[in-house]
C-alpha cells in the first residue's frame, strides 16, 4: 500500500518534470526557428487577427465589467473613512498592474489557446503534421512560431484596451452612478498612477502571451488518441495555461514592484 502510494507520487513528479522539460525544448526550438529566414509574415498577420482582433469583444466586455464591479465594491469600503475620491486611482492601479493583463490573458487562453490546441491536435491525429514533414516543411516553423509571435505581440495591445475600458467603466459607475467628484477622481488617477505601472503591466501581458500560446501549441502538437485525445488536449491546455499564468503573475509582480 505505502509503496504503491509512493510509486504514484514519484510517477507524478517525473511526469511533471518531463512536461516542463518538453515545453522548454519546444520553446527553444521555436526561438531557433523564429530567427531563421524565410519569415512568413502573412502567417503571423493571420494569427494576429485571430488572437488579437477577434478577442477585442470579449476583452472589452471583461475589462469594462471588472472596472465597474470593483468600483461598486471599493466605494462601499472607502466610504467608511471618507476616501471615495481614491476609488478611481485604486481601480486604475489594479487594472494596469494586475487585472488588465491577467484577465485578458485568461480570456484569450480560453478563446485562442484552446483553439490552438484543438487545431494542432486535429492536425496531429489526422496526420497532417506528418504530411508537413513529408513536404519538407518544419511544422514548428510553419505552425507554432507564427502563433507564439502573434500572441506575444497582441497580448500587450489587448491589455492596453482592457486597462482603458476598465477605467472608463469605473469612471461611469463612480462618477455617473455613485456621484464621486469627477475632478478628484481624475486628479488622483493622474497623481497615483505612473507610466511604469502601465508598462510593467504590458511586459506581464507579453509573458502571458508567450505562456498561453506555447502551452496551447505544445498540448495540441503532442496529442494522441483520436477525437477523444483532441478533447483532452484542449482541456489540459486551458487548465495548465491558466494555472501557469496565475502562478507566474505572482513572481512577475514580486520582481517588478
Amino acid at each position: 500500500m505505502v509503496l504503491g502510494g509512493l510509486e504514484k507520487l514519484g510517477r507524478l513528479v517525473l511526469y511533471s518534470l518531463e512536461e516542463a522539460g518538453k515545453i522548454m525544448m519546444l520553446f527553444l526550438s521555436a526561438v531557433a526557428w523564429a530567427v531563421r529566414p524565410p519569415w512568413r509574415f502573412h502567417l503571423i498577420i493571420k494569427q494576429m487577427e485571430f488572437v488579437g482582433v477577434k478577442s477585442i469583444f470579449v476583452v472589452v466586455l471583461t475589462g469594462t465589467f471588472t472596472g465597474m464591479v470593483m468600483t461598486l465594491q471599493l466605494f462601499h469600503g472607502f466610504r467608511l473613512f471618507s476616501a471615495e475620491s481614491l476609488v478611481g486611482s485604486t481601480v486604475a492601479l489594479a487594472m494596469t498592474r494586475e487585472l488588465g493583463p491577467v484577465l485578458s490573458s485568461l480570456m484569450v487562453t480560453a478563446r485562442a489557446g484552446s483553439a490552438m490546441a484543438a487545431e494542432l491536435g486535429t492536425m496531429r491525429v489526422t496526420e497532417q503534421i506528418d504530411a508537413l514533414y513529408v513536404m519538407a516543411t518544419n511544422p514548428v516553423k510553419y505552425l507554432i512560431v507564427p502563433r507564439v509571435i502573434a500572441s506575444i505581440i497582441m497580448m500587450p495591445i489587448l491589455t492596453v484596451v482592457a486597462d482603458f475600458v476598465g477605467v472608463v467603466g469605473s469612471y461611469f459607475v463612480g462618477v455617473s452612478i455613485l456621484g464621486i467628484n469627477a475632478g478628484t477622481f481624475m486628479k488622483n488617477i493622474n497623481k497615483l498612477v505612473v507610466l511604469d505601472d502601465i508598462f510593467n503591466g504590458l511586459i506581464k501581458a507579453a509573458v502571458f502571451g508567450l505562456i498561453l500560446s506555447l502551452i496551447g501549441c505544445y498540448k495540441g502538437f503532442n496529442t494522441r488518441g483520436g477525437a477523444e485525445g483532441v478533447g483532452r488536449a484542449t482541456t489540459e491546455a486551458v487548465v495548465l495555461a491558466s494555472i501557469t499564468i496565475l502562478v507566474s503573475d505572482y513572481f512577475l509582480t514580486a520582481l517588478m514592484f
Partner: protein
Amino acid sequence: MFSLSSEAKVGLFVLVALIILGYMSFQVGQHGFSFKRGYLVETVFDNATGLDKDASVQIAGVEVGRVESISLKNGKALVVLRIKPDIQLEKDVSAAIRTHGILGDKYVEITPGTIKTAFIPDGGAIEQVNRPADIDRMLSQFALITEDIRAVTSSLRNVLGGEAGESSIREILTNMRELTRSINTVVARNDDKIADVVENLKSASKEMEGTFIALNQVAQGLKKGEGTLGQLLRDKETGEKLSKTISSLQDVTEKISTGKGTFGKLVNDEETAKNLSDSLAGINRYVNKAEQYRTYLSYHGEYLFDTSNAKSYLDVRIQPNPDKFYLLGVVTDPRGRRTLRDYTTGGVTTRVEEYDKSGFLFNAQIGKRFKDIAIRGGIMESTGGVGLEYFAFNDKLRLSFDAFDFSSDRRAHLKGMAEFQIFKYIYLSGGWDDFISNQGNSSPFAGISIRFEDDDLKYLMTTTPIPK
C-alpha cells in the same frame, strides 16, 4: 459587402491601441520613463523621515518640482530637488519638510526669498532650512512641557500641601494685615511734612516763569536782525542770490522736461526710447533663437532582406524649438528614381516606367511634436507623404510610420519602423518597408543610424537673418 483584409484589421487595431496608450501616458504621472527636465538644487535636512523620492516640492501649495534623490552626508540627509526650468529660486529662499494634514504625505515646502536679483543656479544649494514641525517632534515637546509643569506643581504641593503649608499661609496673611496698619499710622503722623513739600513745588514753578520771559527776548532780537544769525536772515542781497539760484535750477529742469537741448531730447523723445528698447529686444531674440536652435546630422543605412538592396539616408534635422523641426535630406535607393513617360507613336500612347539608377531622392519635411507623438509631412523620397512617430523610454525608442508615394497606378508606399538607441550616437532599427506593395517591393529590413548634434552648423544657420 465591403470587407477589410487581415492586415488592415490588425493594423487598425494596433493603431487604435497605440492612440489609447498615448492618451493614457499623457494622463498618468510623468515620473519613471518621463523626460528629465529642470535643474537640480541641493538642501541638507537634519532629518528627512518619511520623505520619499519623487515627493512633491511646493511653493505656496503649487508644485514646482520633485525630490530627485535622498542620501546621507555627514550624518545629515542630503536631499536633491529637481525644479521646473521656468521657476527661479531666489538666493535666500528657505526649505522645510511639511506634511499634508496630520497623516498625509511628506513634501518639501519652499518659502520665497526677498532678493529679486540673485537666483540659485543649476547644482546650487538652498542655505536656509527650517526645522520641520512634524507630529513626532511636537509630541516629544509636549511631553517635555508637561514634565516641567508637573515638577512645578509637585513642588508647590510640597510647600503648600499639608498642615505646615496651611499654617504658614495663615502667618503670611496676619503679617500683611499688620503691615498695612503700620503704613496707615506713618501717613497720619507725617501730615505736616507733606504740606511743606507741596509748598516748595509751588515756588519752583514761579521761577520757571522768569526763564520763559528771557527766552522771548532773544527771539525778538533775531527778528530785528541783531547779531550774525539775525543779519543772515534779514539781509536782502543774500535772499536775492538764493532765489536766483533756485530759479535757474527750475529753468534747467523745465528745458529737460520740454525736450530742449541734447539731454532733454534724449530723455523726452519717444522715438529714441522706442528705438532703444526695440534694439534691445532684437538682440535678446537673436541670442535666444541661437540658443534654442538645435541641429542634428544623421546617417541611416538599411538593408532590405527580400529585395537584397541597401538604402542610405543622409538627413539634417533643424529644430528651432523643442516642438518643431524641419528635415532635409537625400536618399540613395538602388531601385533608383522612378519616372513615367508617355510615348505616342502612330496614335498609340504607351506609358513607360523608367528608373534612373543614379538619381538621388530627396526628403524635405516639416514636423511638429506633441509630447510623445510627432507628426511629419512634406516630401518623402521625392514624393508627397506624411508620417507619425511615437517616442518612448526617454526618447530612446522611436516607432515611426510613414506613408508616401500616393500614385494612382500602384499602392501607396507604407513603411513601419522601430529604432532603438544603443549607444550615445548609434541607433539600431528594424521594420518593414513598403508592406502593402503590389510591385513585389515589400521587404523587412534592418538598419543602423548615426546621429549627432552639430553646433557649427547651427551657428552657420543663425548668422543668416532671422525673421521676426
